[in-house]
């Protein structure tokens, strides 16, 4: 615009005056117009002019031939320019703090953990508004879990663009000038202030609640489980996507200034949420230990372990030392907690002192408690290739079974002992079958072995109870040669009936009070009993009733009809006493 001057000094002076005018024009402490408009939201030419003005002032400041007075004016002008640039910087940042789309985040997340619950196991959480988001994350998770093999460390980090490139360029050009004018700290301050709240709000949208250690102690385990699950999902997104993207943004804006600056900005921005994130995991790692927590604690541990390489990368700066250290501490505490739970449980199983048999032969409380971690004895060869955890679990089941065996011997009635074993082993089998994690760890071979034991117990029970009952209905001994009544001894027959009735009544009365809690098992047992008892009785009746009917008081011997027996069997293993066997008219 101005005609070129001959001397540098005067040319410089003119340029300087223009620059100063521009800068003063945009001083928001004096000009209404300057307050209402933002330079970087307007005309690009204006932007360029302003930046050039700043550069010119700076250039003149570094020139040596400068008077004290001039210097004072310069520094005032620069201060005005910097204050303005600070506002512009803040404004650009504020214009680009739209919350990140969480479903796109989740879809980008490539990892899936072995222990984590299957997609179908998702439960309602207490943030109604977040349900949508959680659903999307879950769907995305399950859809991508097939496509991801095992991602290694930093390849699992996914940075996204938090701010569009043009804005980044503007921010860069402002930052450059602020820093060269010695206003680095203000720049970091502004950056940190705005980005902090942006990260905070993204963080909140992941469903994080600020829970204290006291809060977590007071929560029921069920509620905690849900929160742990949520944490696992959120932590992956946070570290691999949110935090790493913030880090990249810092690096972009403060490019070429030196890592100390972008490290400082980054830490300023994410330290709060990062600490909140880890505080939760820490609280879980120091909570009271009890068996049902084991798998979730392992899940948490494994997630954190998976994330460690990424944590090391994202938080590699010196100022992030405390975070890395905390993460490592939590990891080791979680491992300790899992080990502690396992061995405490082991001790409990081994030393469980109650000698009082469980009434009704039903499931021992310890079996039920160990329902989440159980299995039977095994050959050493079969233990090969199993993880230490699996072996430990198997060991626990061996101990459990040993203990159960011991307990069963306390039952005076040997049939009850067998029923007790049946109930408990069946429970274990059901639990293992019902948990994919357990099943995978313990293996189908063992499941078969267990099931075999179950069948064995069932057979033993039947033998113990029913052999002697059915013995009454055998043919041998009833036929006497050389008698007049077609070869059947009436007295023996009557004895047989009497004994059968007595035994049946006794078995019925006793075993109705026994309990098989599992519906299916109870049914199967009854069916199995019926299959042996009913046909035998029916054919016995069929063959010999005429002999009884031809004698005195047939009703004393043929007390029960087949139907009576069928309905009697329905009373078995219900767990409460019944009145006498119903007796209908004999047919």
């Amino acid at each position, binding site marked *: 615009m101005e005609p070129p001057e001959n001397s540098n000094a005067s040319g410089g002076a003119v340029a300087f005056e223009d620059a100063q005018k521009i800068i003063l024009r945009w001083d928001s*402490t004096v000009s209404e117009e300057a*307050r*209402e408009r*933002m330079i970087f939201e307007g005309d690009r030419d204006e932007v360029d002019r302003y930046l050039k003005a700043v550069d010119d002032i700076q250039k003149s400041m570094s020139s040596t031939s400068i008077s*004290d007075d001039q*210097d*004072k004016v*310069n*520094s*005032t*002008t*620069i*201060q*005005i320019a*910097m*204050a303005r640039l600070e*506002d512009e910087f*803040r*404004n650009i940042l*504020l214009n680009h703090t739209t919350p990140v789309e969480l479903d796109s985040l989740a879809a980008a997340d490539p990892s899936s953990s072995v222990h984590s619950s299957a997609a179908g196991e998702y439960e309602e959480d207490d943030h109604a508004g977040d349900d949508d988001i959680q659903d999307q994350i879950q769907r995305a998770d399950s859809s991508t879990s097939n496509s991801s093999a095992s991602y290694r460390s930093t390849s699992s980090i996914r940075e996204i663009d938090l701010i569009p490139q043009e804005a980044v360029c503007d921010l860069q050009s402002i930052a450059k000038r602020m820093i060269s004018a*010695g*206003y680095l*700290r*203000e720049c*970091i*301050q*502004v950056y*940190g*202030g705005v980005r*902090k*709240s942006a990260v*905070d709000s993204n963080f909140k949208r992941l469903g994080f*609640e*600020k*829970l*204290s*250690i*006291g*809060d977590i*102690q007071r929560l029921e385990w069920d509620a905690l489980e849900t929160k742990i699950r949520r944490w696992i999902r959120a932590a992956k997104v946070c570290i691999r996507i949110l935090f790493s993207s913030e880090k990249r943004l810092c690096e972009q804006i403060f490019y070429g200034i030196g890592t100390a600056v972008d490290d400082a900005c980054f830490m300023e921005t994410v*330290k*709060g949420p990062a*600490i*909140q994130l880890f*505080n939760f995991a820490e609280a879980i790692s*120091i909570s*009271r*230990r009890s068996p049902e927590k084991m798998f979730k604690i392992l899940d948490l541990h494994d997630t954190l372990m998976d994330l460690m390489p990424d944590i090391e990368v994202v938080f590699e700066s010196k100022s992030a030392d*405390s975070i890395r250290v*905390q993460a490592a*501490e939590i990891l080791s*505490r979680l491992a*300790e907690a899992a080990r*502690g739970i396992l*061995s*405490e449980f082991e*001790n*409990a199983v081994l*030393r469980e*002192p109650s000698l009082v048999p469980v009434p009704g032969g039903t499931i021992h409380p310890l079996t039920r408690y160990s329902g989440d971690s159980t299995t039977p004895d095994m050959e050493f060869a079969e233990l090969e290739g199993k993880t230490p955890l699996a072996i430990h679990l198997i060991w626990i089941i061996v101990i459990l079974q040993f203990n159960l065996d011991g307990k069963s011997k306390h039952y005076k009635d040997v049939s009850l002992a067998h029923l007790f074993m049946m109930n408990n082993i069946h429970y274990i089998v059901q639990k293992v079958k019902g948990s994919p994690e357990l099943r995978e760890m313990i293996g189908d071979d063992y499941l078969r072995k267990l099931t075999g034991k179950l069948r064995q117990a069932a057979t033993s029970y039947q033998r113990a109870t029913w052999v002697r009952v059915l013995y009454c209905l055998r043919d041998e001994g009833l036929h006497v040669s050389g008698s007049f009544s077609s070869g059947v001894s009436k007295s023996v027959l009557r004895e047989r009936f009497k004994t059968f009735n007595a035994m049946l009544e006794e078995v019925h009365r006793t075993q109705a009070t026994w309990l098989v809690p599992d519906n299916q098992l109870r049914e199967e047992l009854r069916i199995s009993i019926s299959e042996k008892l009913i046909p035998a009785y029916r054919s016995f009746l069929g063959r010999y009733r005429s002999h009884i009917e031809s004698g005195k008081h047939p009703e004393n011997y043929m007390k029960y009809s087949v139907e009576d027996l069928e309905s009697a069997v329905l009373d078995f293993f219900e767990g409460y006493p019944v009145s006498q066997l119903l007796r209908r008219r004999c047919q």
Partner: protein
Amino acid sequence: MPATDYQGLSASISRSILSLRRDQIHSMEPTHEASGHDLELEAFQRQVADRFLDLSSVGSDDLLSLSWIRKLLDSFLCCQEEFRVILFNNRSQVYKAPLDRLINDFFERSVKALDLCNAIRDGIEQIREWKKLIEIVLCALDNRRILGEGQFRRAKKALIDLALSMLDERESTAALAHRNRSFGRQNAASSRDHRNFGHFRSLSWSVSRSWSAARQLQAIGNNLAAPKANEIVATNGIAVAVYTMNSILLFVMWALVAAIPCQDRGLQVHFSIPRQFSWAVPILSLHERVLEESRKRDRRNACGLLREIYQMDKCTKALAEMADSVQFPLTEEKEAEVRLRVQELGKVCEVIKEALDPLERQVRDVFHRIVHSRTEGLDSLGRVNHND
């Protein structure tokens, strides 16, 4: 974990009775074990007393300073460690009533201290934020520069930010309005408003809105009473050690909350310790002195009683006043005044810079030791139960 065999104490019937006054110790059958046990307990009492006597001998200028706080935490860690050893050496006793209940109670109280440790960490972060603003002021009014209008404007901006940030939360909104008037800034643009308020409160606490440091302290001190004579006898004097540790925990946490900014600071915790305990006097005296400090006119609304916060506040307020009233060109007198204040501020800033990181590490250390001791203790309580 190896199954440990716990031996009962020999001659358990004829245990010596630890009384509160040394000359009353008598034993029916002084076994070597018994006197060693008593000596251990006594040594603990003595060391606690010694440490707190030392801490209470601090001058009023250094009370609640960063270095004093660090010394306090050091003492706590030592006491905690000695206590842990006592529990370990007496682990066979630990599961017997009433000691098991007392120990469980101690662990419950110490868990509450964990949340306070985390809150203090937040507070330390807050102080870091202030330090950053001070660094801007120091940069603007640096020694080597000529103090022109530009420098003062720059410093003023930071000083305003700092003043707002150091206000108690409740006072923020009122002060905001006042500040806008007094510094002549008509802030119409929304970005400015966001900046004014959002920036200062952008360091939100990592605890929920309903969490309260005061309540947490009260929970730690709840029903804390010196052990009765029969309890002392039944626990072979260990109840005294437990009470001692509980009291130390309460005091240390209370002092931290007094010094460092945190959500809902409140200093009304009841401290009543029987004077027979040799450490009671120094702790109670410290308590009194801190309370007195909190009642002083210019400290009543402080967000933390840390000495360095006070110094920071004084310096920056003085500088802000000077910046407000400054006329250009500066008189030599005025300039000297300003430079003096800047130097003072610089010194405080140095102290803060040096001490904050180590302090944070110490607080984490306290956290860890409490967790470790509790895990260890609960483990042995649990394990022993199974050996019955």
